[in-house]
């Protein structure tokens, strides 16, 4: 039984080198440090830190490590739709408990 493989590797997609990823990693470590620092400053600062720094870290992992930046629009839309859906679940759920 012969296998006839037609390759359709995407050669149009960029592939960053070692350096790019190491730089991102450094930023992530620094952001983690900021997050820890901010969490010692008191409740409101901590919450704001969580709400901004954490998605930023996750965003860097998605965008660079998971290659989202270099993929076409489809994958970006997929991720955004998913996050948007979760946000809507969260918001509508809070319309209940925040007003009880």
């Amino acid at each position: 039984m012969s296998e006839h493989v037609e390759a359709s590797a995407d050669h149009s997609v960029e592939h960053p080198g070692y350096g790019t990823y190491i730089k991102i990693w450094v930023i992530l470590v620094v952001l983690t440090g900021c997050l820890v620092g901010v969490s010692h400053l008191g409740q409101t600062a901590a919450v704001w830190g969580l709400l901004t720094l954490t998605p930023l870290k996750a965003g860097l992992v998605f965008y660079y490590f998971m290659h989202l930046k270099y993929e076409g629009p489809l994958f970006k839309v997929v991720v955004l739709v998913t996050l948007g859906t979760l946000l809507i679940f969260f918001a509508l759920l809070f319309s209940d408990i925040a007003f009880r």
Partner: protein
Amino acid sequence: MSTHASTAQPSYLVDTGTRKGLMAWLTTTDHKRIGLLYLYSMITFFFVGVGVAFVMRLVQLTTFQHLITAQTYNALFTLHGVIMIFLFVIPGLPAVFGNFFLPILIGAKDVSFPRLNLASWYFFMAGAILAILSLFTGGGAPDTGWTFYAPFSLKTGTNVSLAVFAAFILGFSSMLTGINFVTTIHRLRAPGMQWFRMPLMCWALYSTAWIQLLATPILAITLVLVILERFFGIGIFDPTKGGDPLLYQHLFWIYSHPAVYIMILPAMGAISEIIPTFTKRPIFGYKAIAFSSMSIAAVGSLVWAHHMFTSGMSGMALMLFSLLTMVVAVPSAIKVFNWVSTLYKGSIDFQPPLLFALTFIFLFCIGGLTGVMQGALAINVHIHDTYFIVGHFHYVMFGGTGMALFAALLYWFPKMWGKMYSKKAIYASWFPMFIGFNMLYFGMMILGMMGMPRRYYVHLPQFHTMHVVATVGSWLLILGLLMFFGALLYAIFKGEKAEDNPWGGVTLEWTIPSPPPLENFEEIPTITHGPYHFEQEGK
């Protein structure tokens, strides 16, 4: 794309690989065979569910109450719900007709991940077996209703843990199918098959697949939490530990409401395929129907708490969800208007698939409109947890999805088996089915309006007459179902050979032989126009 040198491929029903017989079917990666595997198992489960309902209706004849205990009755309505919802309506049309026809409708040889497709069916069967096991092991058959509400589901001694684990496994089947269909539609459309040249069934399956991906995992985690509560007492739903039963309801319905759109969207897709063929004209408002499928998927994810209006939610939530529920009715209505507009001044060819498609439209409208009624807060207070709700959802799930599944079966039967059934037998089965259906479920809506609560083993004397009407209706309905499936079963073995295109359809499945060859197409077609292109057809 590669093509075969030979001109006549054998039909997919012939074993051509190294394995033969049952093993060839159990190890197949052919999407058509997988569709049939789903069909045979689902119809079996359907009739088990029907049998359970038959017993339940007997109990409501009051004189039969000594047959079973109240505990057993609770187990029966739980089992009926679990079987019908998780093993029949949710897999429903996507598992059977999506698997069988999606690749053909877009001009492909199979789905993107054929082995994952087979795995989906195995997850389905594993879930079914686990659900059956839960009846006979542990504390016995669950008695919580298919909704497994906390805190009772956390405390009852019955085998809730195994039953919800079964549902958890079934969720994998649904999610993997969603992954497969989205990828297939994005990647395997034939040359020239632009998005807006796809048959509407494909749009329906695409929207449904997205719901399967985005909603099912919420159910998965909710069920895991129930199991963790029962075994480890983690306390998230248990009020004695600070948990909130309402959180359970929210999480449960965040999946289970979109689930009803998983049930209905492919059904509507099938109707959108059938109507053009039997009116010999393109569907009215193709883009409106395509967009309405996506809108129903989107807006349908925003309305879940209309199942919770009497639960103690905030006034803000009540108003918000009631408003959103009214909004979600609009895209469904658009579809109904468009189907009817297609029929108007069309060249009607009255055949069994069309009869059942029209039945769908009629029964779905009743179900849909009663749904809108229930979305009104003032009405909901009176009819929540009554038989009105039971009537409503049977109209949409059975009168809707069920009838559409029957219509799709009648439509695509000749293509799938290469045989034709007796149209007279099908017409004959329709009468007891239709009459019985309405006696049973309209009767229920009357009962609900009168105040009869659901999930009750007994009833007050004033409800008795209507219960008798409903039970007799159930017998007629079951008779019709047996006649219907009897006729189809007979036709599979002894039916007359069918032509490749007995209905004069113009979508891609009608251009290939009946039954289809293993790889669907001798040569992948190039598409140059929309899907309902009747102008050039002689018929």
